[in-house]
């Protein structure tokens, strides 16, 4: 019964929270409406996610989000510093290849987004078989260390969440 009512519990939770944030004040009426949306929308969209990923370790998401938020703030300062104080001639921008151990499409999407939002790197492309990401670095004197940081800092944590 519960399974039938909430086929996708995380989507329900996300919809309820989003609706309450949009309404911008807490009222019982909006909570009820949020729950109605949270039940109807997952049911109606069920055909679109035939095999969604199973989250092995949902609690680890909180840690991951905090690390990424911290890195976004840090990367803003780093990139601002590079823009203001590094002359274009000294800029060592390169392409790097990040081989992927992640296989879940959703996990790779999260990793690609994280790479774009964090220190001086932008995800540009993926290899045809989905086994490697093409990443552009704004200023990387040591490209290998950038790749290793992506793999240890983000990919290892995503492995624990998704696979």
């Amino acid at each position, binding site marked *: 019964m519960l399974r039938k009512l909430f086929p996708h519990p995380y989507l329900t939770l996300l919809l309820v929270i*989003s609706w*309450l*944030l*949009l309404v*911008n*004040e807490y009222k019982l009426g909006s909570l009820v409406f949020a729950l109605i949306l949270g039940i109807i929308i997952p049911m109606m969209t069920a055909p679109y996610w035939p*095999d969604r*990923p199973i989250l092995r370790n949902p609690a680890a998401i909180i840690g991951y989000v905090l690390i990424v938020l911290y890195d*976004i*703030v840090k*990367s*803003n300062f780093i*990139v*601002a510093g590079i*823009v*203001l104080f590094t002359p*274009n001639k000294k*800029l060592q*921008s390169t*392409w*790097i*290849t990040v*081989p992927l151990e992640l*296989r*879940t*499409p959703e996990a790779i999407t999260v990793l*690609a*987004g*994280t790479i*774009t*939002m964090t220190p*001086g790197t*932008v*995800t*540009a*492309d*993926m*290899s*045809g*078989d*989905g*086994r*490697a990401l*093409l990443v*552009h670095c*704004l200023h990387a004197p040591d490209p290998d260390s950038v790749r290793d940081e992506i793999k240890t800092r983000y990919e290892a944590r995503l492995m624990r969440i998704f696979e």
Partner: protein
Amino acid sequence: MSLLSEIIVSVLLVAAGVFGLVGSFGLLKLPDTMTRLHAPTKATTLGVGSTLLASMLYFLLFQGRLSWHELMITMFLLLTAPITANFIAKAHLHRFRDQETLPDTGTPDDWATFEDEAKEMEPVMTRDTPRR
């Protein structure tokens, strides 16, 4: 208390302005498309982020009510910025096709942008059944 909160909100707003300015300056200053892409995806995120934080604090400290809209805006921003950046990067790769300057994929397949048309018609990835 009031002065302190005014200072906090103003500092956040000024920081937001500075980061927005640096992001736009980066667009002008950096040498090519791919490096220019870094400035607006990064520097401006903190610019908008501080504005939203300032807005939340303002409503909390001066109007005495919590405002949660800003969290939604932050979330949408963090979700959409990487996608826009990826689209621009892909368009750049398609347009200039500077395949030789890119590193090797390390896998049998080429980068998705440069695979031939017939291959692009196949589904790129399906769960649990990699193409090779």
